[in-house]
């Protein structure tokens, strides 16, 4: 029996897909798993607050507007982060702020993926005139400084009624961020699709008689989608920080607590020695950003060996 036949008899070694291989590599790193747990717990907290609001459970974070103590009570055993000017618990406000930040960052990511990925794939696949138009659109957007672009969108969209739906608070924020930040992913996908469309599997799909739509959405996009995941695990941090800055500038959620608004309050309070509101918001932002930064880098290393940063 030849060596070849022996292997076949024993059964071929099981192959691993890109995703399985990446996950296996991620699981080996303890720190990365800790970061993943942190990210998941932020999401769970945000989801929990949504559920609590929906079913009207009387839990801490959704009763943030309650007066628990005197105004500006320093941190104590009852109120871990003290109270703000209205005697509201800073801890509850911080927890509630998680919901606002995670919602904004998630919705902004979804909007920019929904715009950027198909546009990039179409531009890269068809080239020619369509490509030129799409490149023109994103070059135009990217020639305006990012912060100015977000501000312009946020200020114009604020309190506007579009298709009978009034844009308020966080809706404006994630629309402004989402509509302006698809350029990076679009450029990335376009470049990658240009490379992929010359490969054999696309030729095979074409020879089977697949239409352009099927090739783009069933063959090309799934094959470059790991880049989208990597890009967004790193970009999520930027979205959270953008939300904080917009809320700080008064363009975000006005009626409910958010981390940016808490920092804005703290600006005046610090001179009176009230530091706890500031520290609570900073800590909340710091831990999610740190976790996302480390996790994003690890994800890139494990899913895309070519892009590896040492």
């Amino acid at each position, binding site marked *: 029996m030849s060596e070849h036949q022996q292997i076949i008899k024993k059964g071929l070694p099981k192959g691993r897909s890109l995703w399985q291989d990446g996950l296996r590599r991620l699981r080996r790193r303890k720190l990365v798993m800790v970061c993943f747990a942190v990210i998941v717990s932020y999401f769970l907290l945000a989801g929990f607050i949504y559920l609590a609001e929906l079913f009207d459970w009387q839990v801490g974070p959704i009763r943030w507007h309650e007066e628990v103590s005197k105004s500006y009570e320093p941190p104590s055993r009852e109120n871990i982060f003290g109270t703000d000017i209205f005697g509201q618990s800073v801890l509850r406000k911080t927890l509630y702020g998680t919901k606002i930040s995670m919602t904004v960052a998630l919705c902004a990511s979804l909007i920019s993926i929904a715009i950027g990925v198909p546009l990039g794939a179409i531009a890269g696949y068809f080239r020619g005139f369509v490509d030129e138009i799409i490149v023109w*659109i994103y070059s135009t957007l990217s020639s305006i400084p990012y912060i100015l*672009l977000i*501000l*312009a969108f946020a200020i*114009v969209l604020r309190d506007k009624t579009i298709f009978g739906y009034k844009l308020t608070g966080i809706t404006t924020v994630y629309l402004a961020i989402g509509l302006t930040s698809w350029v990076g992913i679009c450029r990335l996908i376009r470049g990658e699709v240009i490379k992929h469309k010359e490969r054999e599997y696309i030729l095979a799909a074409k020879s089977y008689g697949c239409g352009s739509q099927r090739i783009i959405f069933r063959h090309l996009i799934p094959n470059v989608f790991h880049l989208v995941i990597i890009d967004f695990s790193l970009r999520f941090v930027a979205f959270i920080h953008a939300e904080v*800055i917009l809320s700080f500038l008064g363009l975000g959620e006005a009626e409910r607590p958010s981390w940016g608004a808490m920092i804005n309050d703290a600006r005046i309070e610090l001179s009176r020695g009230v530091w706890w509101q500031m520290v609570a918001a900073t800590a909340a932002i710091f831990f999610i950003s740190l976790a996302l930064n480390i996790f994003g880098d690890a994800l890139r290393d494990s899913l895309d060996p070519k892009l590896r*940063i*040492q």
Partner: protein
Amino acid sequence: MTTYIIRRLLYTIPIVFGVLLLTFVLFTLVGGDISIEIAGKNATAETIEEIREEYGLNKPLFLSWDSQFINHFKNALTFDFGRARDREPVIDKIKRGVGPSLALTVPMFLGIMIISVSLSLVVAFVRGSVWDILAVVICIIGMSIPYLSFILFGQYFLAYKWGLFPVFFSPDLSTAQYVTLPVLIGIVTGLGSNLRFYRTVMLDEMRSDYVRTAFAKGLTTRRVLFKHVLKNAMIPIITRVVLAIPFLFLGSLLLERFFGIPGLGYLMIEAIGSRDYFVINAMTYISAILFVVFNVITDICYAWVDPRVSFE
């Protein structure tokens, strides 16, 4: 070379057109008629009509030589942005703000660039050691702390508590006095991401054969790092540096807000507060023009530092 530059400049026309189209859609079509808002609560119909006349809001949107669409382009190309909500010409406001903004951002930019490029060379040289890991950890931690917190704590401790610097801008202070603390804070916040970026660039270079050859020749470490590696790492550095220059003009929104420096960032914050579309429109257009111009300059710089780049 000349033909290359001319062709490159021609490419900018559609971009400028696109920016103007975008600002028109945003501020005129979506933003809508804000004359009632400008006039205030107790305005008469005549006042509102006068304001409409002044800003050209009573003209047709399209399909006329005197339409708002054509006027938007005409005004932008002649740099005539009309008057802001407080009746002062927008262009005067911008001219007044450029000075303080540049006084803040230029030293900040130079500081970040020089420190992070030279530190990245050192860190890339000691790659894999404890110092390298420490530097990366500090960078990631620095990137994760929100910008606002850096500013607030810096202002609170360094200026308010310990009195090392003035807390706020006031007209009788010299530029150096009011700018030092914001610049320091800006450098500290910018170091994290920049150092990490340049470190990656330098590491790519460090693995090249020419570095080994240079060491084998017996050149000193300093000479290899600052002469050979730095020169070869020039392309990514130039891209990052030249394209950052137009942003200097914008000033620093948050730093100016916290320290009350009357630059362009402060101007924008005021414009956001009063929903002054005219100021934001002018700023968007001017910064986009600067960005486009510096993009051309970057391309020319590539050709200048790297003879392999052709002009085709």
